[in-house]
């Protein structure tokens, strides 16, 4: 019978392919989360030094893909000590009340040519937004590299309130760039 045959075939192949190509462990030293924003029309770069990610990604089984990325907001490097101190405060990230930014992917879609799109929820400072994150994935043996970028609007997350709320000095758009290197789990 055809369905039985199909089920048998799946049963025979799935564990292998799933196990062999599921990328789970993030290599912190080969991963980076950076951001670019405009300040008085000047592009400024920054980064987050600490973040963690739980990942299950198998290009052959996208329906079971999972990703949760958590960024330690206090680990920010805005480019100056003044700036790092400022953005920890209440008008920016308020890191004592909201230490973590979290992205939880709920669905991953293949766009072809090693390009993917993760749909999920981004939570910063108690505000949650649905976002779509495009990324490329390149596998090299035991490790695979996700590269992507997306733009968030800081006002959506109440980042930079009060005197900073206007966008003439610090622009609303912030481009987040990431490179996550993951190894296949053992």
């Amino acid at each position, binding site marked *: 019978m055809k369905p039985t045959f199909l089920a048998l075939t799946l049963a025979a192949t799935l564990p292998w392919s799933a196990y062999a190509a599921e990328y789970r462990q993030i290599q912190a030293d080969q991963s980076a989360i950076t951001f670019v924003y405009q300040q*008085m029309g*000047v592009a400024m770069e920054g980064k987050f030094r600490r973040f963690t990610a739980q990942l299950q990604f198998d290009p052959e089984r996208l329906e079971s893909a999972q990703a949760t990325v958590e960024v330690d907001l206090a680990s920010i490097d805005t*480019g*100056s000590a003044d*700036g790092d101190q400022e953005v920890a405060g209440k008008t920016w990230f308020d890191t004592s009340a909201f230490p973590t930014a979290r992205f939880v992917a709920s669905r991953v879609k293949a766009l072809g040519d090693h390009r993917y799109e993760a749909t999920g929820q981004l939570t910063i400072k108690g505000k949650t937004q649905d976002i779509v994150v495009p990324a490329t994935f390149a596998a090299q043996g035991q490790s695979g590299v996700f590269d992507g970028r997306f733009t968030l609007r800081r006002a959506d997350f109440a980042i930079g309130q009060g*005197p*900073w709320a206007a966008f*003439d*000095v610090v622009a609303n758009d912030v481009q987040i760039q990431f490179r996550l290197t993951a190894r296949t789990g053992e």
Partner: protein
Amino acid sequence: MTPHYTPVAKTLHWLMAVLLFGLLALGFTMTDLPLSPQKLQLYSWHKWAGVTVFLLVLFRLAWRATHRPPPLPDHLPKMMRFAAHAGHALLYLLMLAIPLSGWLMSSAKGFQTVWFGVLPIPDLLDKDKELGDLLQTVHLSLNLLFVAVIVGHIGAALKHHFIDRDDVLTRMLPTRNLES
């Protein structure tokens, strides 16, 4: 009739005097402000004005090289002549070195200079905190020296006017041209 400065030289002198006083006042006050949007705005304005002054100095030097300034009065002793020339040379040197040090400091600190928010000035240095701090000290020291030389410049002009009673000060005044 004693020779006087050309109208262009006079305009450059007084325009830059105003700009430099503004830049110095801004530079010495903005650095102590707590971080705020205003502070970032003031820094940008300071940098834009600094680039502007640098370009004006280049133009001024070209003008001076092609338009001989009026000679110093005959009564000046040799030492005073030397001091006058050295003082002016130092002023020009600092007017070039200070904006350059500011630009390099900005580069090293990772804050690119974008003239009037439109024209990016290339970063010659990569971001380097220690080099940035060093250049900050250089920028500050040069400015303190600049203030000292400006005080000397103004003092000398006033001495010429009130003690020597010659025309060294008046020949740079804007009105003088109208008579001749």
